[in-house]
């Protein structure tokens, strides 16, 4: 009976969905991101409540920003608004709308559709200006947070497997916890910044902007999945701390690494031309290896070194061995992705993407040299039983700093557009079969 009651209580809580309380866009024609084969005569938006629409409530733009819509009208029941459009040529179109709810509050949004052409993503709607410096910084913070949680967990499970002194254990949980919460918080900020850019609304209107077209993009789906995944990681991390059960760190680690793939499944490696499951896999391996490397270095420099002196030697030697594997994965995947995204060698210095990549390569070379010094000079000495170098902690902090700087450049790279691949000659496309 008690178990049945407990199960009933759990089930009552276990299937949440969503709620709405004001004018909500229920349906559009054409639909979000729909490709239509014939030019529509009107664009229609249907709401769950009556709305008031000014004559310019809906504006339809071509990809070049020409307005192709007329005056907006409401239907008899006031729950739908329509705008006539000209005969639309082949291409992508952006619909920006703003209506006043019957209760006098404004709701707004944007969506796209294509006529005999794929609809552009809402993030590339007409008027969206693309990533800003703030977005670069937010993306960088996201990578750092991901490294702190995934790398921290990896270090705790693969390098320092046994118990840590209480103070060191507490600091490990603090760092990994800050990483887990950071991924969620910074992820929300990144999603909202992208949405703000797509919607192009003043802040007051943005608060009531409809984000659902963005939530249906790969980017939005990745945001949703990763938020849920890292909420679970936070819960597991907390339970591991609360119950002193390190075994709970394993699912947290695997979920963190698994959901990190959201970035790979929604970024260049998934959507640009030439992308395939292999590029997505390479991107995820690249990201995971970087997170494990940087996060592990942070744990080594800020947890083990100051708070667990008896574990320094063993942790350094083990991490050094793991780092060799990580660097190999990082380089292999990175080279593959660079070749994929830069069709010509000259793109390295002629395209913006290539130039940022060059800066990243320079920093990676510096980090590799630093790591090589640790691997080929410090490690053999420690294996021989030589005393620990006094400058080693500072050196580890320096290597971590270079790793974090690489993440900043990686953040800029992720937000940049790779150069276009050369078009396939038409002759080849239409070549007759032998």
């Amino acid at each position: 009976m008690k178990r049945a009651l407990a199960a009933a209580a759990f089930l009552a809580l276990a299937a949440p969905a969503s709620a709405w309380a004001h004018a909500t866009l229920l349906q559009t024609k054409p639909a979000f991101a729909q490709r239509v084969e014939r030019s529509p005569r009107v664009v229609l938006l249907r709401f769950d409540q009556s709305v008031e629409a000014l004559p310019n409530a809906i504006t339809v733009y071509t990809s070049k920003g020409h307005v192709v819509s007329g005056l907006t009208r409401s239907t008899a029941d006031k729950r739908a608004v329509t705008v006539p459009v000209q005969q639309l040529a082949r291409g992508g179109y952006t619909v920006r709308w703003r209506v006043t709810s019957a209760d006098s509050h404004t709701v707004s949004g944007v969506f796209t559709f294509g006529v005999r052409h794929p609809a552009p993503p809402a993030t590339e709607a007409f008027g969206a200006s693309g990533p800003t410096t703030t977005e670069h910084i937010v993306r960088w913070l996201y990578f750092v947070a991901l490294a702190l949680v995934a790398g921290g967990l990896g270090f705790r499970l693969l390098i320092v497997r046994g118990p840590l002194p209480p103070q060191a254990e507490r600091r490990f949980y603090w760092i990994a916890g800050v990483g887990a919460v950071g991924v969620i918080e910074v992820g929300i900020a990144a999603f909202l910044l992208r949405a703000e850019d797509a919607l192009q609304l003043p802040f007051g209107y943005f608060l009531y902007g409809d984000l659902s077209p963005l939530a249906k993009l790969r980017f939005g789906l990745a945001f949703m999945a990763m938020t849920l995944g890292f909420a679970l990681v936070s819960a597991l991390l907390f339970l591991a701390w609360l119950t002193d059960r390190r075994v709970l760190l394993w699912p947290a680690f695997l979920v963190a690494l698994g959901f990190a793939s959201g970035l790979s499944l929604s970024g260049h490696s998934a959507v640009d031309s030439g992308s395939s499951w292999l590029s997505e896999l390479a991107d995820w391996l690249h990201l995971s290896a970087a997170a494990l490397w940087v996060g592990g270095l942070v744990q080594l420099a800020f947890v083990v070194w100051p708070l667990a002196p008896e574990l320094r030697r063993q942790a350094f030697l083990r991490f050094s061995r793991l780092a060799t594997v990580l660097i190999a994965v990082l380089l292999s995947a990175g080279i593959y992705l660079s070749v994929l995204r830069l069709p010509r060698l000259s793109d390295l210095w002629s395209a913006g993407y290539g130039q940022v990549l060059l800066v990243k390569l320079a920093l990676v070379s510096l980090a590799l040299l630093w790591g090589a010094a640790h691997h080929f000079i410090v490690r053999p000495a420690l294996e021989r039983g030589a005393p620990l170098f006094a400058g080693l902690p500072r050196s580890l902090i320096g290597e971590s700093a270079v790793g974090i700087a690489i993440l900043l450049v990686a953040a800029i790279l992720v937000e940049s557009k790779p150069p276009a691949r050369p078009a396939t000659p038409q002759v080849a496309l239409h070549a007759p079969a032998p």
Partner: protein
Amino acid sequence: MQPPAEFVHWMFATGLVLVGLCLLAQAVVGDEVWRRRPWRAYLWPSLAFTMGVLMWPVMVFFTNSTIHMLAHGSWAQVMMFSGAAELGLVRGKLHSRYWRLAMPFAFLVSGAAFLIHEQNSWFFARAAFLHHLIGWTLIIGAIFPLLAVFRPRSEAVRAGFALTFVVLGVMLYCDRDTAPVFGHLSPLAGAQHR
């Protein structure tokens, strides 16, 4: 495909009522009796923490407006945080009584989120009325967990704290989008649900 708003409200209302009843039982029988079975001490903080975790799906699947997304996100975080702080104290992992301030903080943030994200006036419809009422109940009700930090044994404070949860749960059960409040429904609200 999303279920009606009321269903979600009812699910979380169930959680709030369960938390409130646990707290009320603890206030009535006293700590000594309540903790004869050690797991009981974990009951309401675990419920609060679990409700926080379950609020995340609501946040990510509800993207019809930025403000609602942020409100659901803030509830998810403060419920997890306050539940976690209480669990840490019960387990003995946290020692400072000031961790109990997490609960009044959660009440204040939740109340503010209710009031800020509700665009309509009090008498627009039942949902608007109850959103205002829940917001102010949370803000005023924050006094109970705040006093509990300094007077943890006060029966009045403990009962007030428990009843705040019960009242919040009952209000959330009554929450319904476009239903009349005191027989009144704004003509601007649209047709009633069902």
